């Protein structure tokens, strides 16, 4: 009676044992060869992760070299991006990324914080909270290109109308629209991190405050929030990392302009969106190399942000 779920394990075992039969050993040991192969496969797979990461980094570095050799540190401060003249400076995109990400973060904080607090303290159980929780998870699962598409067709006309009212050039696309969409996209992420962090607050601490007669608001404000400040900050740092690397939604609504934006309603480009827009058109080696260098910068920035954020959270959970 086969009641075991067939995981294909039998196939793997047959392979391992047949490999054993093929090796001629002095003392025929029916047990160690499949065993060693198995352990080697596990070890090799784990090692692959390390090799993969280093290969990614090395590839980015090597392909950036022509650009690094040509421009050096000028690359980071020059605002001229002129493929025709062969002059590449990344400043417009660094600024574009910086502004959109920080704006998105600032817009998202009240919402994600409210979600964390609401679901963590006010409404932990019940139909409505679990509906809310599912909705937030759904939000996180919507693909980026769909946000971009929706943003392009629904949000951009709205922003355009607002710009007309305000008397600025009604591009519709631009930094403001991108920041709005980014904010919506990172809310689920920082909300779930915020909830994890809130759960770390020991119940005894909260109970002590309540038993002293504090209102919910006071407990949240004076006991819980100070306790989780570093965790919530870390969560927001990680959300920032997400925003920095976000490509598709931004590419579709940022307006694809390679100059430093003069206002938040102006079109621009981020590090990610310029790569998306121009990589397939890049003809010269220097052009490609400059785009790859931007990719390298993106890689390093997101890596540092992620490591920083995760370290803070780790420290927080250890404290508890």
């Amino acid at each position, binding site marked *: *009676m086969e*009641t*075991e*779920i067939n995981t294909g394990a039998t196939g793997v*075992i047959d392979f391992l044992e047949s490999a054993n039969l093929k090796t001629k050993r002095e003392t025929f*040991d029916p*047990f160690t060869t499949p065993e060693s192969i198995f352990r080697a496969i596990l070890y090799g797979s784990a090692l692959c992760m390390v090799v993969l990461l280093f290969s990614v980094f090395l590839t980015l570095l090597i392909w950036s070299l022509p650009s690094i050799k040509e421009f050096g540190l000028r690359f980071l401060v020059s605002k001229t991006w002129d493929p025709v003249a062969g002059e590449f400076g990344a400043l417009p995109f660094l600024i574009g990324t910086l502004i959109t990400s920080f704006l998105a973060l600032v817009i998202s904080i009240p919402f994600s914080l409210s979600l964390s607090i609401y679901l963590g303290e006010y409404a932990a159980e019940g139909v409505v909270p679990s509906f809310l929780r599912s909705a937030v998870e759904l939000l996180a699962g919507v693909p980026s290109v769909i946000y971009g598409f929706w943003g392009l067709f629904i949000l951009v006309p709205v922003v355009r109308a607002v710009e007309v009212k305000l008397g600025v050039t009604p591009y519709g696309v631009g930094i403001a629209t991108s920041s709005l969409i980014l904010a919506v996209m990172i809310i689920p992420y920082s909300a779930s991190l915020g909830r994890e962090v809130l759960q770390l607050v020991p119940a005894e601490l909260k109970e002590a405050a309540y038993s002293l007669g504090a209102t919910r608001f006071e407990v949240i404000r004076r006991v819980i929030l100070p306790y989780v400040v570093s965790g919530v900050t870390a969560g927001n740092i990680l959300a920032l990392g997400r925003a920095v690397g976000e490509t598709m939604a931004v590419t579709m609504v940022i307006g694809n302009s390679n100059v430093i934006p003069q206002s938040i309603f102006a079109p621009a480009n981020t590090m990610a969106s310029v790569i998306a827009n121009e990589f397939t058109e890049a003809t010269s080696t220097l052009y490609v190399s400059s785009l790859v260098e931007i990719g390298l910068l993106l890689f390093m920035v997101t890596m540092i942000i992620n490591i920083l954020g995760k370290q803070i959270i780790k420290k927080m959970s250890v404290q508890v």
Partner: protein
Amino acid sequence: MESPVLKTENFCAFFGANQILKNISLEVTRNKLTAMMGPSGCGKTTLVRCINRMHELIPNATVSGRMLLQGEDIYAMNPILARRKIGMVFQRPNPFPTMNIYDNVIAGYKLNGIRIDKAGLDGIVEESLRKAALWNEVKDNLYKKGTFLSGGQQQRLCIARALAMKPEIMLLDEPTSALDPKSTAHIEELMIELKQTVTIILVTHNIAQAARTSDFTAFIYLGELVEFGPTKKLFTVPQDKRTEEYLTGKFG
């Protein structure tokens, strides 16, 4: 006297530089129940895990001395073959959750790829479950997963699983410490019945259980074999002062 099933000679066990067992020399008699008793941390579980070579699975674990099963050096043979000759039952019942009762009993054969025809397997399943006093309770539910069984029944399933391999010796490591008193009593009855046909080593921290069930008792303290002998004798006229203190509850 017939040759012992298990014989240890100056057996020592280490975790790195830490010596857990110090020169244990004893003989386990066939078809008798030998209890290993002693306070927590004295090394009795480590000794038993050295018999079926589970101890060496922990990094930095080493042993010295000799251990012979039916005259053969356990440490000279392939550990996997050694384990197939020795049955072990653990403190917490651990039937395989993805298999039904039937497959659990013959798990040793199935997992090892030992091919036996269906009739043979049916026979082994019934025989092992009968010996474990579980047959009547599960014979109509052989193809259901074992999760509906109580703790005591699950433990008897684990005993059946070990018995199915027809081991030369059975190691029971505190098999009743996670069970309620009623199940404990059942398992003790089972052990007394079983020992007539199977050699059993029982690790227990329960002095009364050792007295009730065993023919021979080894008292282990701080890694040393303090005293070893027929249970009646050890419990009524202990030779070593430490044994006497342990039996009267002065420590442990």
